[in-house]
């Protein structure tokens, strides 16, 4: 596998889009968190709401893992975009054919793309951890690992997005079209999720049926649903009307989709004409 990854590295290390998107993503994570941090530090905590929030700082230890994971999650479309470009480039340049002709097996080719999704997700997660540490160490609270599971959820979300990106790329094959479908799907799923969430709330309030937020059981939303902003003291006012959060079920769905899309992508690469 190492020599296959080395070949992937040769493909991307001089690719400007790779450098540009990576840089944009890394700066983006830091900048987005800095904005949220500034809002809390300079505006919320100096307003009347500060009393209600009782000095709640989302960037202190314990909360920081969840805050940075949740906030950074919004930027995960960038690494997905990068993977779409890298995978569809192979179709555009017909280098996927050439790689097989030159002696890669189709399985190796599929596996290394999956491995890329994993590495990109792991690198994104590593940067989230570093960002969280950088912010948290600027506060006075002592180091704590509590809440680190949210970093795991972030990793799962990153991996899910990446695998969906690879699936769409292997299915659509054209860069622009695949990017379009990815974002349209993302938007469409969010709209459907909103409807399902409203339905879930109605079911709970009118018939006392509580399946959790149904929208969380969709492919992208299942991994989104695991991440949320830390529960501020304000939030507790609203939770009573919300459906129960069945974390384990949502996690199960997220993993199920991950396996499903990995399997479908592999199948497309291994079985179809190139």
């Amino acid at each position, binding site marked *: 596998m190492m*020599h296959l990854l080395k070949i992937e590295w040769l493909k991307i290390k001089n690719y400007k889009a790779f450098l540009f998107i990576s840089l944009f993503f890394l700066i983006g994570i830091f900048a987005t968190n800095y904005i949220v941090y500034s809002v809390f530090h300079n505006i919320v905590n100096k307003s009347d709401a500060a009393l209600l929030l009782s000095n709640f700082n989302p960037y202190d230890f314990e909360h920081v893992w969840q805050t940075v994971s949740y906030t950074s999650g919004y930027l995960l479309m960038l690494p997905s975009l990068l993977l779409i470009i890298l995978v569809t480039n192979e179709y555009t340049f017909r280098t996927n054919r050439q*790689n097989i002709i030159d002696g890669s097996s189709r399985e190796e080719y599929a596996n290394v793309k999956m491995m890329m999704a994993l590495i990109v997700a792991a690198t994104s997660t590593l940067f989230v951890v570093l960002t969280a540490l950088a912010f948290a160490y600027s506060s006075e609270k002592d180091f704590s690992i509590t809440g680190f599971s949210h970093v795991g959820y972030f990793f799962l979300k990153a991996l899910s997005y990446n695998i969906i990106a690879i699936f769409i790329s292997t299915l659509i094959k054209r860069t622009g079209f695949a990017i379009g479908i990815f974002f349209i799907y993302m938007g469409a799923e969010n709209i459907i999720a909103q409807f399902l969430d409203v339905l879930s709330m109605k079911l709970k309030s009118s018939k006392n049926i509580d399946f959790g937020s149904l929208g969380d059981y969709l492919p992208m939303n299942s991994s989104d649903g695991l991440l949320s902003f830390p529960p501020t003291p304000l939030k507790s006012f609203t939770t009573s009307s919300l459906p129960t959060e069945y974390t384990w079920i949502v996690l199960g769905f997220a993993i199920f989709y991950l396996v499903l899309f990995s399997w479908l992508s592999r199948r497309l690469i291994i079985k179809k004409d190139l």
Partner: protein
Amino acid sequence: MNVLSINNISKNYGKVTALQNVSFSVPRGSVFGILGPNGSGKTTLLGIIMDVLKATGGTYKLFDENPDNQLRKRIGTLLETPNFYHYLSAVQNLKITAGIKQRGENDIERVLEIVSLTNRKNSTFSTYSLGMKQRLAIAAALLGDPEVLVLDEPTNGLDPVGIAEIRELIKLLASQGKTIIMASHMLDEVEKVCSHVAILKYGELITFGNVDEIFINDDIVEVASSNIDQLKDALNLMPGNLKVEIKGNIVQITFPVGSANLENVNQFCFEKGIVLSQLQIRKKSLESKFMELTN
């Protein structure tokens, strides 16, 4: 030993049949031409052998073994179009090829020299002309000095000098004992370099074998005189049971290869009291033979 043996390979695209029960084998050390008009299934066949297309039916073997990717690493292939990363240079692209083949990392300079791309080796692929892209694809096929080369229309997009160079290169490689499988619709290309040939038409194998056996070039003698019918009747009496046909205002006599003798023809007609106004020998062209086989 056969480098490649194909057994009843078929390929359908929906209702369209691209290949139908094609079987033949390529002996080691041969320069094997796969000849056929556009759309006859040449590239499809090579695509199946290289595992980029899946056959609907049939099997094939590489080096007398069941095919796998390790065996493909021993073959240098240019299939259909030059496929490279547009944003990388020739050298960077060939490093990837060498990485996949797990051979030829130190061979990059040599192959670039062969295809005369050394002075542009650090330019990105996207800046190359069509001919240069083709040259790079040939360089990639040569990387690591493989024992077998599969070249699909290798002279595509090359200028006359380039075409001549590639022909010489193929002859040189063949003389070094390499097996070369070459698909082409260029008859003279096949005639000039190939030892064996398979002819495909609409996905069916018309014939295959030694080039000299398949393209037996009959000798055709063309004659004319003032009375063409009288001439034909007279020629029908010539010994050897020859084919005699009127074509416009001339008569064609087909002799077995190498047996036509103009003096004898002239003598024979003179003895029959016919004075010839035209007498010439014409080798049957490969082209007309090809037309005959594929039509």
